[in-house]
């Protein structure tokens, strides 16, 4: 095998694909082969072993989990370099025809969780309309299209919005850890929150047809469809390159690729590829990945990542 093989997250996929394409166009190495398997699926393939049959790089829209790291170790994939490539904001957006809306995480939790706190009690979510959640919100039915649990975007949403949103309610705070987690993280299933499949673009297209519906998807899709959609303001911040990069916008997450060190020097072009990926031309603020919707890292962070790539410092076991 002479081509690099890359698997992993569907969120990272378009960015990796862009690098792959550029790499194929501008170097004499054969273009790497890229396959979108989802973060977890990618980890599974990546950690299955060392050798020509196993991928060299996997993309992830979240950090590697401890269990995955262990699996890697068990299968002889002992040295893995963790490389952050940038940030991805998660947009909560709706049709341009809809009203302006300004939400807090607590309100989002109230609107989307299966069980919520009402008057100090934990009850099944009674809210049918936004105005039920907070009278200041529009009097429109709650209808949110979001990613299925199999997607990294969903994980991030739960972690960044739901988990923090619920913290503001004392009755929730006082729950036992396990119960609290369940209450905080479980999305409602009565039709107000709709799991709309892995295909973010389809969510975008459906929002166009239904002005009351909101969608949860990667920021890049919002960016590309600004003529039809607008992003809701979360905690007073509208999603944009700037607010995400600066960390102001509260729902954003880092994106990673993982490199199998053992393959460097065996699979041609591997190191060159990763170097290109985190190079200024790609991952820089003005790089072509930014054109694709990736929120670039601040310069000093990028420099650190470039350093890691240069030395191929293997990662340590993650905490969780």
């Amino acid at each position, binding site marked *: 095998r002479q081509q690099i093989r890359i698997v992993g997250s569907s969120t990272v996929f378009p960015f990796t694909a862009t690098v792959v394409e550029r790499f194929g166009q501008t170097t004499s190495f054969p273009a790497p082969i890229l396959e979108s398997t*989802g*973060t977890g*699926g990618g980890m*599974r393939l990546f950690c299955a072993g060392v050798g020509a049959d196993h991928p060299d790089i996997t993309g992830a829209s979240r950090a590697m989990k401890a*269990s995955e790291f262990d699996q890697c170790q068990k299968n002889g*994939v002992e040295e893995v370099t963790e490389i952050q490539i940038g940030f991805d904001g998660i947009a909560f957006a709706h049709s341009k025809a809809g009203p302006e809306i300004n939400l807090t995480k607590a309100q989002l939790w109230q609107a989307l969780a299966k069980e919520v706190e009402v008057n100090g009690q934990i009850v099944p979510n009674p809210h049918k309309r936004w105005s039920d959640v907070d009278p200041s919100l529009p009097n429109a039915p709650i209808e949110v299209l979001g990613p299925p649990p199999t*997607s990294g975007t969903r994980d991030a949403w739960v972690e960044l919005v739901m988990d923090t949103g619920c913290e503001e309610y004392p009755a929730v705070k006082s729950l036992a850890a396990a119960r609290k987690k369940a209450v905080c993280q479980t999305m409602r299933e009565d039709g107000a929150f709709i799991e709309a499949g892995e295909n973010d673009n389809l969510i975008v297209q459906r929002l166009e047809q239904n002005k009351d519906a909101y969608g949860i998807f990667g920021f890049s899709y919002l960016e590309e469809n600004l003529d039809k959609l607008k992003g809701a303001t979360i905690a007073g911040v509208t999603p944009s390159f700037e607010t995400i990069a600066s960390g102001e916008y509260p729902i954003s997450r880092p994106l990673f690729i993982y490199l199998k060190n*053992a393959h460097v*020097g065996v699979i041609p072009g591997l190191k060159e590829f990763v170097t290109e990926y985190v190079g200024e031309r790609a991952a820089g603020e003005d790089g072509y990945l930014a054109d694709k919707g990736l929120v670039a890292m601040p310069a000093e962070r990028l420099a650190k990542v470039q350093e890691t790539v240069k030395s191929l410092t293997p990662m340590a076991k993650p905490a969780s």
Partner: protein
Amino acid sequence: MSIQLTVAILLLLSAIGFWMGRSRAVAVSGGRIASLHSVPGYYGSFTAIWAGLPALLLVLFWLVLQAPVIEMLVLNGMSPESVLTWAQAALAPTELERVSGLVASQAADALGETQRQLLLINIRNMAAGQEAYVNPAVVEALRPAAAHYAELERIAGWSVFAVCMALAVGGLLLTRRLIAPRFRARNNVERVVIWALVVCSIIAILTTIGIVLSLLYESVRFFAYVPVTEFLFGLHWSPQTAIRADQVGSSGAFGAIPLFTGTLLISAVAMAVALPVGLLSAIYLAEYAPRRVRSTVKPVLEILAGIPTVVYGFFAILTVAPVVRTLGLDLGLDVSSNSALAAGVVMGIMIVPFISSLSDDVINAVPQSLRDGSYGLGATRSETIRQVILPAALPGIVGAFLLAISRAIGETMIVVMAAGMAANLTFNPLAAVTTVTVQIAALLTGDQEFESAKTLSAFALGLVLFFVTLVLNVVALRVVQKYREKYD
């Protein structure tokens, strides 16, 4: 000697064998071809088979075994120093320590399986002359091994060539001795051909065994996490929450009932569309339509069956679902934008040709004598159709219906795109539901965990699906067979 060349030469020998066998047969017949048991061509084929087939089988066998053997020999033959040099360049310091400790005694054995793999990639690349792809630091160290590798490959190639030639020539000589006027060449050749046919038909069985085994193996592991009863009778399906450490075992997370009901619901909607449309179309085409109309409409309808399901998925979600929703809202109904109705309707459209084509066939299979009997009594066409033809064709139509249902149950892409993932236990077609196939696709293409009940559950679902379609098919087959007996 490359395998390709060996195979080519074998084929050539086989061809020569054909010619030899043929001319030998003509020779032994003494010019009276009719005195031979078989036509000379069969003696030729007989010779060709014996010259070619055993050797080709050997080549196939060899192809499987050659690589591992050569690799083992090469690795064992490497000097400790070169292994060490390679290890220093390629391995991480921690691994290196372990390796260098052992390397003095048993070079290759010191390496773990994964390191061997890497080393072999390098050696193979070098043996193939692609030094450019190998770390320059190890090129020199690996040169002897690469040469060894190439040498072994050469030897292997020649030896397989030699053995093949021996087999082929042996076959030629043997068959030449056998050829006599009374020798039943045709019967022998035919026996080989028929065995080949048998082998082909066994592939269908192997496929089934393969499916059942690969599903069963993973399912059994799944049932180690989740009891069968819970899976089959549980009312709650939410595989995602169960992977979080604090929720494993929370009861009902793997209850597949909502998936079954969802599948049923969508299939029911689909059949509610497909059955009347399909059946009535079939009746019209078979009994009323002029020949010309029939021969254009039928293929047009069949296009519906050929359209890729991805396309239907788009159609469902971007065209039909909004229409359904708007209509529902106008009527004051609460319609989910992922309604089972939209997915079902589109699936129904897709299935129409299955029902219409199959029904058309069974309606045509109703003997003309029954129609004549009915017309002869003064029945109109529709009376004949409703009271004689349909009852007579009913078993066949039921068969078609069952096959269409199994198609609906197994359909994936439409529901993946249009039906969503919400495992609601409901029979309301306006609500969102999910199906077994959606879950399989989602569980296996999405975020997977190792060895988790979540991933494995996909295989259990696949197993259920397999058995459901099996039962439906056996029933359909029985029904159709019963029907067949009646008129044949």
